[in-house]
């Protein structure tokens, strides 16, 4: 034996070294076997005697596992099929888990749809006080953010790929060296707060700073001014008859906006028997969703809002002064509704306006009835601007040895006069936890990828303080770490899992007794019941602060707002949000400077010059100058904007942070290059942070604007500025039908006044089809639609709708199945604005069906206008013949079939369409069929409310109702019976299943 051993091994090695071998058979000749025998006696034995089944399986299993190991550099986590299937898990059927999405720190309760372990869709959590089942566009789009392939995937040290353990090794000594600073965004998470407090307590010299560019700076300070200490105001719009907004977009912005929109709309809807509805006065600078519901609206410069606020106070006898315009009628209205009204100030208004608003609420007895003041929901409210300034000062002074930034992107979004980068570079050890490798990540030693909220455990408070446990749905996709982990490390616990941290905190809080059951209930409900902050009894009595409103200065006033889609820039890499037409301007993919028609004319951009461009959705470029700085931006004229004011939006002009936030030049081979994608510098939109000064974050007076000589610029705008004036479109088309509440009471069926002879005619040459089983239908209440876009993104998410990119939107090829049409009525200086969501009308006599040559679009016996994608040849005749233009064509291969991460994101119940195929709204037929299958199994009809379409589910104002028209007790059948129910373009006799309720406003009869 021994002699063969030596010999054969040598020979074998020689052979391997010098010869080519073509098969394993060749290798496994006798000498090879002998060699193996020498090295692995037992294994060779097995080979010799042949392999039995058990051993074979064992060996193969092991090699598979080891083979897998060799392919990656991290410990393999074996995936195994369920041995015992979890209760309730049926392959192909989604499960819903409750969680909460923190936006600017505040929790927004969600239910997450999970298909076989993959979260695919966000819905609102009906049990969550900030949601009540509704979602906004950010919540809907967060599912795309989870899978975003551009998210940071590795720990980086000085830009080079590194590891978490290396980071830990360097962090430990740095943290011990003193001079540690934490920089976070707004935090309401009790657990994270406790961790930070503990860290601060055990690390002498450590400090905690907070900075968030947008959000409630002024709200925070205003309430402090009013109540003498930080506080939190919770509004109850369901109890308010009169609402006054002082430049506040309360229905679309801020932590509680979804709830507020729901509450407000509950008092707004007109149904049979409604005897009164609420009334909304809005004094604002630019058009907002709240403003579009206003019964009385003033467009004033931001600085003038305070004047009006003080005038209202005057009307209530709080301060001396005079009243102008309809303020006196407004105050009378308020006085008639003591304790049943709300005055609310906007986030951009200075603290004084907030204090005035609170003083008015106090005077009217609203505090305690419609307004609840609680302790702040934030863990440690501070003046974030001061906090940031302090940090920068300390960094410049060299006092900061270690800076750990948990989230945020201060290099990009710090105020323009604070040179954050320069200060940052002086810190010897800086680390940044961030979901993207962004502008700030470029300037730190250590970049740590941050988890998405669906990847890690945490907790957060809602606008009223209710705590939700943030429950992950999936293990971190990209090696992310949560802030809890980083703090756990700082606290010395290297293996502090967020799950344990959160659970430990809460079990300590409520006691270990029966904690498991409690915990399960919390997770199941998505909220910790009864954790809302109680109304504060003590605290100062707000009074109108002294001083006078500043007189409007000469020149233009600049107003800077967070973007409705990308917010402060944090959602800039989310394609759904980028391509979402902004609620008021319908512009996507960039930011523009908004001005009023008068202001535009004043700088030489008058109607005549604009008319030539507006059809092409083009505009001119302008230079905006403010305090010595200039930004070149497209200018956009918006009816209803305050004169002499320029509105600009944050969040654009990003230079790092993903392929969508900072796109590469459009591929001219793939698409006709209609317009260069970018402004100069290769960014999307312009960065307005240089205009944010630390003494006035939201702009101010003294701005200048001038047109440049640049060529007209194409803006990705999905709608022109439509007017519905008969003189403009040849006729009253009856698209929006509105009346005042008083008119409604006199003539409830005012919508019938439009061409009754044509619309009410049921003449047909043929007998109608009888819908015997279900008759699916939808009613949309235009009275309460704010145009917030929640439904649009919900539809996109549910139905796997692709994005197409800016150049394709410019070419008018956006794919949204559901769009929100916006119409103006009246004077362009302050028009009424109406929003009308337009999904497929599911016409009973659909014009699209008879023209399809291959029968790809057909009618179902339940009244759905169905689209058979794989039969579609793509003649586009159906789209041409659709009077509502709700059909969407895949001009190119828009769906991303390549990116693996995005495959997991898609709804498996909906086909992903290829190029050349027409698509359209199906009333979420996949949801209808799922409910029908359930109902059939149980031998019953589908119950009303069992099917909720994606758009309906998302709608904060509950404006969309879907159901079975044949069930006379269903909500939708009831609404169809309302006198205000009308069909769009009914005179075409298409018999749409989607109908609208007329828009009803409630103006004060005392005002002209």
């Amino acid at each position, binding site marked *: 034996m021994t002699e063969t051993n030596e010999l054969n091994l040598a020979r074998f090695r020689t052979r391997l070294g010098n010869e080519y071998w073509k098969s394993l058979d060749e290798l496994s000749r006798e000498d090879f076997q002998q060699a193996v025998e020498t090295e692995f006696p037992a294994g060779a034995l097995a080979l010799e005697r042949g392999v039995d089944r058990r051993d074979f399986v064992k060996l193969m299993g092991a090699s598979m596992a080891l083979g897998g190991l060799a392919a990656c550099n991290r410990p393999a986590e074996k995936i195994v099929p369920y041995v015992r299937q979890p209760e309730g898990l049926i392959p192909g059927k989604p499960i819903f888990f409750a969680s909460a999405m923190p936006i600017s720190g505040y929790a927004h309760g969600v239910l997450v749809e999970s298909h076989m372990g993959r979260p695919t869709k966000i819905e609102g959590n009906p049990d969550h006080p900030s949601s009540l089942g509704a979602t906004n566009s950010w919540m809907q789009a967060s599912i795309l953010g989870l899978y975003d392939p551009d998210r940071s995937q590795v720990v980086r040290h000085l830009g080079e790929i590194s590891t978490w353990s290396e980071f830990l090794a360097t962090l430990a000594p740095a943290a011990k060296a003193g001079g540690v600073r934490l920089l976070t965004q707004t935090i309401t998470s009790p657990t994270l707060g406790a961790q930070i407090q503990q860290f601060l307590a055990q690390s002498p010299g450590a400090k905690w700073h907070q900075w968030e560019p947008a959000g409630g700076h002024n709200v925070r300070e205003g309430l402090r001014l009013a109540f003498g200490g930080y506080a939190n105001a919770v509004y109850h719009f369901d109890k308010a008859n009169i609402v006054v907004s002082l430049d506040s977009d309360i229905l679309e912005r801020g932590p509680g906006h979804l709830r507020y929109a729901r509450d407000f709309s509950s008092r707004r809807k007109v149904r049979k028997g409604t005897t009164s509805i609420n009334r909304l006065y809005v004094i604002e600078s630019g058009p907002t969703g709240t403003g579009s519901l206003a019964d009385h609206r003033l467009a004033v410069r931001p600085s003038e809002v305070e004047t009006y606020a003080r005038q209202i106070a005057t009307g209530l006898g709080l301060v001396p002064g005079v009243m102008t315009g309809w303020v006196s009628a407004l105050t009378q209205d308020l006085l008639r509704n003591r304790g049943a009204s709300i005055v609310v100030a906007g986030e951009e208004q200075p603290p004084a306006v907030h204090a005035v608003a609170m003083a008015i609420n106090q005077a009217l007895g609203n505090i305690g009835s419609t307004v609840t003041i609680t302790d702040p929901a934030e863990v440690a409210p501070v003046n974030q601007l001061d906090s940031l300034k302090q940090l920068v000062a300390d960094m410049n002074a060299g006092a900061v040895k270690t800076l750990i930034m948990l989230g945020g992107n201060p290099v990009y979004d710090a105020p323009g006069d604070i040179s954050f980068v320069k200060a940052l570079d002086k810190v010897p050890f800086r680390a940044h936890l961030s979901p993207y490798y962004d502008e700030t990540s470029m300037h730190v030693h250590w970049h740590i990828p941050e988890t998405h909220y669906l990847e890690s455990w945490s907790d957060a408070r809602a606008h009223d303080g209710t705590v939700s446990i943030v429950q992950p749905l999936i293990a971190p996709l990209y090696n992310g770490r949560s802030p809890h982990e980083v703090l756990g490390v700082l606290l010395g616990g290297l293996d502090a899992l967020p799950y344990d941290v959160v659970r430990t905190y809460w079990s300590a809080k409520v006691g270990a007794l029966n904690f498991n059951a409690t915990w399960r209930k919390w997770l199941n409900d998505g909220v910790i019941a009864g954790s809302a902050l109680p109304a504060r009894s003590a605290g100062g009595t707000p009074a109108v602060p002294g001083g006078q409103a500043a007189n409007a200065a000469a020149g233009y006033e600049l107003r800077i707002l967070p973007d409705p889609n990308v917010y402060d820039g944090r959602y800039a890499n989310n394609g759904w949000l980028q391509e979402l037409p902004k609620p008021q301007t319908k512009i996507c993919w960039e930011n523009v400077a908004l001005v009023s028609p008068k202001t535009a004319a004043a700088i030489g951009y008058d109607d005549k010059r604009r008319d030539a461009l507006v059809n092409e959705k083009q505009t001119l470029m302008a230079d905006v100058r403010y305090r010595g700085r200039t930004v070149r931006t497209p200018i956009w004229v918006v009816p209803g904007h305050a004169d002499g004011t320029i509105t600009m939006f944050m969040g654009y002009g990003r230079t790092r942070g993903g392929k969508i936030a900072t796109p590469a030049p459009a591929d001219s081979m793939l698409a*006709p290059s209609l317009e260069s994608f970018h402004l100069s510098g290769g960014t999307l939109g312009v960065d307005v942070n240089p205009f944010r000064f630390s003494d006035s974050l939201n702009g101010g007076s003294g701005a200048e604007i001038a047109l440049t000589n640049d060529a007209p610029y194409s803006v990705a705008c999905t709608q022109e500025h439509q007017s519905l004036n008969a003189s403009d479109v040849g*006729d009253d088309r009856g698209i929006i039908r509105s009346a005042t509440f008083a008119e409604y009471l006199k003539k409830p069926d005012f919508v019938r006044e439009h061409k009754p002879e044509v619309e009410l005619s049921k003449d047909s040459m043929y007998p109608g089809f009888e819908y015997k089983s279900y008759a699916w239908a939808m009613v949309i209440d235009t009275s309460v639609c704010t145009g917030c876009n929640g439904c649009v993104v919900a539809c996109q998410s549910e139905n796997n709708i692709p994005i197409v990119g800016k150049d394709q939107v410019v070419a*008018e090829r956006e794919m949204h199945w559901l769009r929100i049409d*916006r119409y103006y009525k009246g004077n362009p200086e302050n028009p009424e604005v109406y929003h009308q969501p337009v999904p497929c009308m599911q016409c009973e006599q659909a014009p699209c069906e008879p*023209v399809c040559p291959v029968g790809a679009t057909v009618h179902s016996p339940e009244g759905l206008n169905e689209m058979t994608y794989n*039969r579609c040849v793509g003649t586009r*005749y159906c789209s041409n013949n659709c009077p*509502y233009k709700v059909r969407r064509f895949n001009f*190119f291969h828009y769906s991303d079939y390549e990116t693996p991460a995005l495959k997991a994101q898609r709804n498996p119940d909906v086909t992903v369409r290829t190029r*050349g195929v027409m698509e359209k709204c199906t009333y979420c037929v996949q949801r209808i069929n799922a409910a029908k299958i359930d109902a059939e199994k149980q031998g019953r009809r589908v119950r009303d409310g069992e099917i909720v379409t994606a758009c309906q589910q998302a709608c904060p104002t509950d404006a969309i109702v879907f159901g079975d028209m044949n069930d006379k007790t269903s909500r939708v059948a009831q609404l169809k019976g309302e006198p205000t129910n009308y069909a769009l373009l009914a005179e075409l006799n298409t018999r749409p299943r989607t109908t609208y309720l007329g828009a009803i406003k409630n103006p004060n009869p005392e005002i002209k």
Partner: protein
Amino acid sequence: MADLTPVHEIRPLTQDIPERFIPVPTVEPGHTFASVTDHISAIVLQKRMPKLWWLGLAVGIVGVTVLTTTLGKLVLVGVGVFGINHPVGWGFDILNFVWWIGIGHAGTLISAILLLLRQGWRTSINRFAEAMTLFAVAAAGLYPAFHTGRPWYDFWLFPYPNTMSLWPQFRSPLMWDVFAVSTYATVSALFWYVGLIPDLATLRDRSRGKIARVLYGMLSLGWRGSAKHWFRYESAYLLLAGLSTPLVLSVHTIVSFDFAVAQIPGWHATFFPPYFVAGAVYAGFAMVLTLAIPARKMFHLQDFITMKHLENMGKVMLATGLIVFYSYAMEAFFAYYSGNGFERYMWLNRVTGPYWKMYAMLIVCNGLAPQMMWFRKMRTSTFGLFVTAMFVNVGMWLERFVIIPTSLSRDFLPSSWGMYHGTRWDWSMFAGSIGLFLFLLFLFVRFLPMISIFEMRTMLPEAQAHPEGHEA
């Protein structure tokens, strides 16, 4: 018989018919059977092609290259290379389809209807016009075939037995189009080919090269010119003419249904069929003039395509042009008289909307330019005719632009309004289809007699002069 007395001088002597029925000569005096045959067949058989022909062929080849590049791009990348978008689902694709189909109409009209109406002057232009029809239909057919989102599934538009057990949807005007256009192409091709057979035999007999003899021999199907052959030929030709005649009306009627059946303001109009047919004849004659005027010069065919032909075509253009102009007026009138706000706005938008220039140019090209044909001086000047024909060619293209994208760009809901512009690929496909048309046309004049030789012979006085006692 041997003397060359012009026919109009002979006939009154032999036949007692009123003067107004005496055919005016459509061949210049001085020709005999032999000279006609020589002259026309020589273009194919003997002469070297003129430089202009080579130039024309080169343009055609470049065009075909552009076309194949465009189609390659289109199929590989998607129909999005065109300028179509969400309000405007049809742009240059259907526009050019209708334009080409319209152009084709003159050929069928000249061959079939004028044959049945015994308009002798048609003889010298019918072959040419029929060829033009075929090539125009070929160019037209490209558009519906390639404008679909997934052209590789176009065959689903045909009713063929399949495992899916699916039929096309017969209510769709696009289905009717499929039948109308394919029937039209088939009948036109047959008609053209049957008419060619005696001439192919002539070429077979006269060609010197072996390959040419074999090819022409095969194509002439054994034609020997026996009385039986002539008898059968005449019956077949008349039958095909009878078959083609309704096609002149039906094809463009059905093409107009693509629009009239839809409900878009500007499309949904009952007068579209006659309006479109008149427009098609109008466009067709303009195109025949556009091609015939240079061709007769290039191949010295002034003797056969005389000023009389050109003038007659000018008259047809004037007549159909007036029908088309009347239709424009009616569109405006209906818009006003219907009391329908959408229709009214549609017309206002055409005239004053973003595409008002197109409409203004349309009126100039199609409404005003053909009025020149009232003047005999213009009708008998090749320059005048050519310029007018060019106006009409452009005008008919503009007419389809005004109807198709302009109507779509602003329909019912103002929120969905949009603008349409052709992209470079739209233009390259248009240029390519023109290239294909020219390419085929130039090959045709090279390899086939562009004027019917045997029919031209019947136009000669020799053919008319019969011995005493025989009827013509």
